[in-house]
């Protein structure tokens, strides 16, 4: 069973300089986390009242104080819907993912997206507690959506994060998170008219690291991330014949110390060129940003780009996707949508078509 993307978009705010390891200091946003009950919900290395931890200046995409991660998600979904208004009418599942908390504490980003763009979909939910594995998990759920048997139905999968104190935006030697949002529209199977990418296989894994992200040395985290990502990719690729693997590219999370290149060497795949700021992990949006890069590559090279996308979290969640990106996508602000094509196509290899 495959999933086909009909639109994808990534939205990054401008890069700004930060001199704090923590996310944006918004005094009114997360005050309850500094109260007694918050002790288990804020990093244990951030004491009550601390909203900034001095760091050498660094750059990352950072949202304006007033713009919430829900605003960012809504903006990128709006771009996709504007590019193809008829698609919004066919969206029957709305799945939103976040690593971070809602700045609009009492609100619901997934219901906001429904309110703004979609007419009473059958499935609506927000997925959390998976970190960057939220998007692969949301995609894995789609074959079980209530609307799955409706060939005309689409799903909207969105991801958005804004890093606000007391959470760490930067963990030295390990990761720098950027604020980012991304979204895609997904059809249930095959490559429909206007499809821009096919997700052929999804692998998820939960192997808790047991490491403390703020205390344990960065190299131990990087080793766990590397091993988990490698194992996930290798399991994903088991059905792929060796001669086909030579043509695969690899894209994944941007952790520090060249982790992406190390994973690529371990699995023997060529890294895909990134178009997003180097050294910045795009959090929940990372897997969709990687697919967008794959589509851009297919455009440049005028041929389909077969891509492995990986993501892994310090907590111990990981996922890998096998994706074929089409060269026929049309550029829109912040992303890509399909050109109308005459017929449904299947660019998977015969072996993969059988395996799926």
């Amino acid at each position: 069973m495959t999933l086909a993307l009909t639109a994808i978009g990534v939205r990054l705010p401008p890069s700004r300089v930060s001199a704090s390891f923590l996310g944006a200091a918004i005094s009114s946003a997360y005050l309850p986390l500094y109260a007694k009950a918050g002790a288990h919900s804020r990093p244990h290395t951030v004491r009550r009242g601390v909203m900034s931890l001095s760091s050498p200046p660094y750059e990352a995409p950072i949202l304006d104080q007033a713009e919430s991660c829900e605003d960012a998600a809504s903006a990128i979904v709006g771009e996709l819907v504007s590019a193809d208004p008829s698609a919004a009418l066919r969206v029957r599942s709305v799945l939103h993912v976040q690593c971070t908390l809602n700045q609009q504490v009492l609100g619901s980003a997934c219901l906001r997206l429904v309110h703004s763009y979609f007419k009473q979909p059958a499935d609506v939910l927000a997925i959390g507690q998976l970190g960057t594995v939220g998007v692969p998990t949301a995609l894995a759920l789609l074959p079980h959506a209530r609307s799955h048997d409706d060939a005309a139905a689409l799903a909207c999968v969105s991801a958005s994060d804004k890093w606000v104190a007391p959470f760490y935006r930067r963990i030295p030697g390990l990761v720098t998170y950027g604020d980012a949002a991304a979204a895609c529209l997904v059809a249930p199977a095959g490559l429909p008219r206007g499809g821009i990418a096919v997700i052929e296989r999804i692998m998820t894994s939960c192997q808790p690291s047991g490491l403390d992200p703020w205390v344990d040395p960065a190299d131990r985290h990087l080793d766990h991330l590397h091993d988990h990502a490698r194992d996930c990719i290798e399991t994903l690729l088991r059905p792929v014949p060796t001669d086909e693997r030579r043509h695969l590219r690899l894209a994944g999370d941007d952790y520090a110390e060249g982790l992406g290149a190390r994973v690529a060497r371990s699995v023997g795949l060529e890294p895909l060129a990134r178009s997003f700021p180097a050294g910045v992990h795009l959090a929940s949006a990372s897997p969709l940003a990687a697919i967008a890069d794959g589509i851009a590559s297919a455009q440049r090279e005028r041929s389909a780009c077969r891509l492995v996308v990986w993501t892994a979290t310090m907590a111990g969640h990981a996922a890998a996707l096998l994706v074929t990106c089409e060269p026929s996508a049309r550029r829109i602000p912040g992303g890509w949508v399909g050109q109308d094509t005459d017929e449904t196509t299947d660019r998977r290899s015969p072996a993969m078509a059988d395996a799926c």
Partner: protein
Amino acid sequence: MGARTRPGHETGRERSPLEALMAPQALSPVNPVGIVAAAYHLPGERRDIVEWGAEQDIPAQLIETLLANGCRYFYASENESDLDLLAVALDGLAAQSGRQRVASATYVLHAHTQNFSVPPAPTSLLAAVAKAYGMQPRLCFSIEQLACSGTVAAIDWATRLLAADPDAEHALVLTSDRVFGNATYRIYHQSGVQSDGASAILLGKTGTTCRIGPITYRNAPELHMGPSTPANERAIAQTSWLHTKRLFQEHQAAIGFPLAEYGQILPINAYRPNWNLIAKALSVPPERLFLDNIRDRGHACCTDLAMNLVDRGFDVLGQGKPVLYCGRSNIGAYAALTLLPPAMAEQPDRSAPEPVTCEVMQ
């Protein structure tokens, strides 16, 4: 409301509404799945809002209003984390069902309402649970931003995943919520007091105490901002009972089973006057609503489902009567879940599961 019947196809006699509801063809393809066992945990000693209100300088008139609306007791965590609360609930479930069965669940879903009630990113409550119990779930995730109807969504998705996977025997649905903020945050629209708590529900295909029946959702997405402003709070207060009433009507219309014939309706543990209004409007006998836990336990958000099942629902199901749970929220998400007694229907066809796209790493 009179009982509606459907013609019986075998004998020509009229089927009862329950027989019609229990018939395999009346259920969705996910019907092999049911609840094996459930456990919940409310931390600390039971607290009385009269004493607590005086300690916290809550206006006496507000306490009187809460008492008049059926509230009295609640439970609050002293210094436990979400994992601490969940561990007690999971241990309770393991004591009933065996630790191995709990730990081998193929799917682990979590739901919570309180936005802050999770460990800090990039740590993960699900990874912490998996590590503590040696779990290697094929898929796990937490359902958020649907507030107290999120539990129904978690049951729904766990059921779909389990039903479609011939290799999977069990799924876990976990909930945990801790209230943040000062004392007034515990008080819910003058008609509820929020408790901290956690629960663990084991779903399976065999050995079930009840089966998962039809589920109906109703979303009012215009309420997505929640009670963030006085105007929003008013809009929620004015429309919430109406959405809940319509949810019940839509659920009844979808499955053809009269509300009045449920053995018990289990609401969330708040809004007693509201539930009574809804029951009256829909001609449901007031005793059909289980409202005791509004007084005895308080509203522990997503944990209310397991709490009310353990305290009342399982007994009713054991008597062969179906139970209806209703999750509602202050952000526009509403959900109704019918639970069916297990013994009255022939076992449905478990063949031809949906192919699963996602695979687990071995």
